[in-house]
């Protein structure tokens, strides 16, 4: 069934084929994996020699985790702002202020055309966007596990059916589908207040955003299935459900975390786009609805930058922070990304100190 996967699948596979246990696509990548294993052993030996610092999990944590720390700090600050900001800011729809005030000590980020305090709107909007991102991320992850891990583990006809469905969802363009579904659902009677709630927006984004993750998880689950310890568990008479949840899923944790983070980024960006087009939740404030308000309020034309710059900046910072965390995870999953630059650096230093043999080549 491998050969009927669409191109994205292949790209993802290729990027993971260099990881330590992806299915081999070619002798070259098999060799690459073996080489990675050698490098890993060597690093482990070096790490053991250095010992002491870091404890026994040091080898699975990024060695120089500047990216990880930066990412966690950025995401943490935004999360704290989203949780506690609304508690200290004035009500976000308090229109007693003057309209379109630039930033001042009284209104840190100025006010909107309707006299709303932008700082307060930003706090509530961050909360709303984070909520949508988390809910959509969880929904997408659950679907990806069902379609990816189950397909990869069970194989056979179930795999064929689940994979075909995954690939169809993967190829059909995301935002237009979300727009079409939102346009139908939000104007339907019978859903009541749910029709334009942030929960529904989150569900739509989650339901449309899982396919890429499922492809990655399936590839990994297929490879894990053939491991001895899984075979041993099967021989010992463990039920498939238990094997998946106790033996396989724990080994997928780094990948699951990475896919969850992707899901959150996708949902936050998707919500922003959807809301900007006027298809977002109406009851609650999100970063996207703020941008939509700014658009309808002519913020760009009147030069009210304090109105439309902050929401986008928060989204960009959140996305960048989450991506940095993902980078750190990626370097654990795919040690080459971390080791190759370090080796190159070490060799260049050695060459500079006069110990090397080449100084202009690929390995200098």
């Amino acid at each position: 069934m491998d050969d009927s996967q669409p191109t994205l699948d292949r790209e993802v596979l290729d990027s993971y084929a260099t990881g330590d246990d992806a299915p081999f696509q070619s002798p070259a990548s098999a060799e690459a994996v073996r080489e990675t294993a050698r490098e890993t052993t060597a690093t482990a030996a070096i790490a053991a020699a250095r010992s002491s610092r870091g404890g026994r999990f040091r080898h699975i944590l990024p060695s120089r985790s500047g990216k990880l720390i930066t990412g966690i700090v950025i995401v943490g600050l935004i999360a704290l702002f989203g949780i506690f900001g609304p508690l200290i800011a004035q009500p976000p729809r308090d229109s007693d202020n003057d309209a379109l005030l630039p930033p001042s000590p009284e209104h840190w980020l100025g006010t909107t055309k309707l006299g709303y305090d932008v700082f307060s709107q930003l706090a509530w909007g961050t909360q709303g966007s984070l909520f949508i991102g988390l809910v959509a991320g969880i929904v997408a992850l659950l679907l990806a596990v069902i379609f990816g891990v189950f397909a990869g583990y069970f194989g056979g006809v179930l795999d064929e059916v689940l994979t075909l469905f995954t690939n169809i969802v993967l190829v059909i363009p995301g935002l237009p589908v979300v727009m079409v579904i939102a346009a139908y659902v939000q104007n339907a009677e019978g859903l009541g207040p749910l029709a334009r709630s942030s929960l529904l927006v989150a569900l739509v984004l989650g339901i449309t955003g899982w396919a890429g993750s499922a492809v990655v998880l399936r590839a990994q689950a297929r490879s894990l299935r053939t491991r001895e310890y899984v075979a041993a568990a099967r021989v010992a008479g463990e039920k498939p459900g238990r094997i998946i949840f106790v033996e396989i899923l724990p080994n997928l944790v780094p990948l699951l975390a990475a896919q969850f983070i992707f899901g959150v980024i996708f949902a936050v960006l998707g919500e922003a786009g959807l809301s900007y087009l006027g298809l977002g939740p109406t009851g609650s404030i999100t970063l996207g609805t703020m941008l939509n308000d700014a658009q309808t309020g002519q913020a760009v034309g009147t030069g009210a930058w304090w109105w439309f710059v902050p929401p986008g900046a928060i989204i960009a910072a959140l996305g960048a922070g989450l991506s940095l965390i993902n980078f750190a995870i990626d370097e654990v999953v795919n040690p080459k990304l971390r080791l190759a630059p370090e080796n190159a650096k070490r060799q260049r230093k050695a060459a500079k100190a006069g110990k090397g043999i080449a100084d202009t080549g690929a390995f200098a």
Partner: protein
Amino acid sequence: MSFYLRRVAFYLVTFWAAISLNFLLPRLLPGDPAAIMLGKLRRASGGRPLSEETIEAITSILGAGKDMSLWDQYVAYWGRLLQGDLGVSSTRYPAPVAELIANALPWTIILVGVATVISFVLGIVVGAWVGWRRGTWLDHLVPITTVFQSIPYFWLALVLVAVFSVQLGLFPIIGGYDVFEFPAGPELSWAFIGSAVTHAILPAITIVLSSVGGWLLGMRNMMVSTMSEDYVVTAEAKGLTPRRVRTKYASRNAAIPSLAGFGIALGFVVAGSIVMEQVFSYPGIGKLMIQAVQGLDYALMQGVFLVITLTVLAANFFMDLIYGFIDPRVRHNG
């Protein structure tokens, strides 16, 4: 040959699934889009009764009450699609949906297509260089590109408009061409092309800025992985010049996954810039889609969605064929 047969089968199934989704959504979700659409058409036509033909077109696209079985509706739906009849738009009454799409398509394809190619070439060249120089200060470029990737691209467009159009007045704010200079619509003259190009610069910059990071990062990571392959070491050991190793040995193989990604990106040319077209009021497919969704013009919305899906499938299929040719492993490693 079975590789190509399987690809053809996959895309046929996907095409069928997309059309069926289009058919089922308005019928299975709560609400009555056909009634809403007919009401809008009546208002648009100024209260005159609609022709039988129009009513029939709308009901077969969006769902007809209880008097017809779902299967009969499905057959009628396919019949209409195969004739190329997508119904009548209510927001731009009485223009047929197919005509509106045909007018909007070139704008999007030219703008986003050119921008996508520029972004891809730039990302691959710079990414190959950064990957080659791994372990140097250039590695710090990598996290920076993610910031650009995480920026909502329509927000980037807003900022660019605010700075370059509103503050500095260098570029026009909205539109695909100067409507005051060319009130009769697009024409074939140098003046018109010039006007269209100046209107396209900011949207193109937006697309390039927000997408180049992904290409750069992917290429850099593949380059780093490829560089530790044995055949690159061999090439190095043979004493080939670094330039030859870089271009003929490492880059060529590292670019393969990016090429696959390029196929997908080409497919999303029509779909990928919807929100950006709203920011610039660019007269492309995205703007049409937004108009349809905001005006509850379900017939137009379905037609645009269909065209978007078709282009994605066609581009993916085309790229699959080429990919099987570039990288024979995918054909044989079933």
